[in-house]
């Protein structure tokens, strides 16, 4: 009898372990009956590798569905929010790599006397794309913050507490860092520490100087040790190193807020175009970056990728992000019913 009870307990624990592969919303709805089902299967056939692999595989698929990367059974509103959340999370990850690469490409370009047309075109494309991605992300953040504030005033703040706190802390850090931005860029504008200075009649120089400061604040992502540079103090260097991390964490917090906040229906209709634009811009950046490399953009500048394998990891990331973002957008679009009878179930409209 005791042996049987131990066996039952062991089976329940095994089933609970397998259940952990599924997302929390799924566990809440199907968890109990699924565990019961697994216990009965274990009682009949105790060990079966194929069965465990099947459960793990379907659990991963359910998790992918939960973040909008696989056809989910959730309502269309949830799928749209998941797609936008995933898009923003991936874009946040990509943007720290994008601005770092762009700033280096820009510095390499401005440091040259001769500018081949393909290198100029790809550098220009990288500049425009980075600018557009940042503008789009800023617009998304403004909309999300507005929705969050509305929900808090309606007294439904509870699910938003954790991501809001993380977003406020990291966003606050980024804003405080932005406070130093004029001081960081001033030597390049005024002309100090061997820099030429800048005239408003030369906007190209302004972009190059901006690239210099951006490089200072993002280089840790490519070179793990940042020795500091020129007029930057060691403490400022350490703070700068935290900027990309804060950008990424803030992006993830915003993505979590998107999943939990009530989005008005008129804004929910814009989810697919927004996600599609993010995916398209990421794709154009990837292609322009490949072109920039092929056309000799980084020639004679071996500092671009000191670690070859890290460079390959970043390339794979840059290629993967647009594909995943576009996939999540398409799934969100497909999940939206075509007719009026199945309106998007997003509250707060």
């Amino acid at each position, binding site marked *: 009898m005791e042996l049987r009870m131990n066996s039952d307990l062991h089976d329940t624990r095994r089933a609970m372990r397998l259940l952990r592969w599924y997302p929390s919303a799924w566990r809440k709805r199907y968890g*109990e009956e*699924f*565990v019961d089902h697994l216990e009965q299967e274990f009682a009949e056939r105790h060990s079966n590798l194929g069965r465990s692999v*099947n459960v793990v595989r379907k659990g991963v698929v359910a998790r992918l569905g939960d973040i909008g990367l696989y056809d989910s059974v959730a309502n269309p509103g949830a799928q749209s929010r998941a797609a936008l959340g995933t898009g923003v999370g991936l874009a946040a990850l990509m943007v720290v790599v994008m601005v770092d690469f762009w700033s280096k490409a820009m510095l390499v370009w401005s440091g040259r006397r001769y500018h081949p047309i393909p290198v100029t075109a790809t550098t220009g494309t990288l500049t425009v794309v980075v600018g557009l991605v940042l503008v789009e992300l800023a617009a998304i953040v403004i909309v999300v913050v507005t929705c969050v504030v509305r929900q808090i005033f309606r007294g439904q703040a509870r699910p938003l507490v954790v991501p809001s706190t993380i977003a406020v802390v990291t966003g606050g850090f980024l804003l405080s860092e932005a406070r130093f931005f004029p001081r960081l860029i001033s030597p390049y504008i005024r002309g100090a520490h061997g820099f030429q200075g800048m005239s408003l009649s030369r906007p190209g120089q302004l972009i190059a100087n901006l690239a210099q400061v951006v490089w200072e604040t993002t280089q840790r992502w490519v070179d793990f040790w940042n020795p500091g540079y020129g007029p930057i103090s060691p403490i400022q260097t350490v703070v700068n190193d935290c900027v990309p991390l804060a950008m990424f964490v803030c992006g993830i917090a915003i993505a979590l807020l998107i999943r939990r906040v009530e989005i008005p229906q008129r804004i929910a209709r814009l989810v697919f175009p927004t996600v599609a634009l993010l995916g398209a811009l990421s794709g154009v950046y990837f292609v322009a970056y490949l072109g920039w490399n092929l056309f000799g953009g980084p020639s004679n500048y071996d500092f671009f990728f000191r670690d070859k394998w890290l460079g390959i990891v970043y390339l794979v990331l840059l290629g993967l992000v647009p594909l995943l973002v576009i996939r999540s957008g398409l799934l969100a679009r497909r999940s939206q019913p075509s007719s009026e009878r199945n309106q998007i179930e997003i509250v707060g409209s």
Partner: protein
Amino acid sequence: MTDPENSLVGLGRNAGAAVLILSSLAGGDKHGYALVKDVEEFAGVHLPPGTLYQVLPRLESRGLIIALEADERRRPYRLTAQGATVLAEYITAQQRILKTGQARLKRSWSFA
């Protein structure tokens, strides 16, 4: 003809498992494990638990089955009228294919 959004078309590679589940539920309400045993009996196919619980939510969201009140931890499922219509249409289409295949095999390959 049923709405394609609610038919088996959109289930992709899960359509086979969906037909087995709907056919089983056509014989009466069943919970997950009873459903697997029934399918094993009439089709000789063992539905793995991950696959079963991937397809059940999809059938539920399409309105082809409904979940009944849980009996302790076991929740039975029931075929809906729409589910029965979709299954009947699917079987009719398959019968047409079977008849054509059988006739052609008989004519060209002399299989009875």
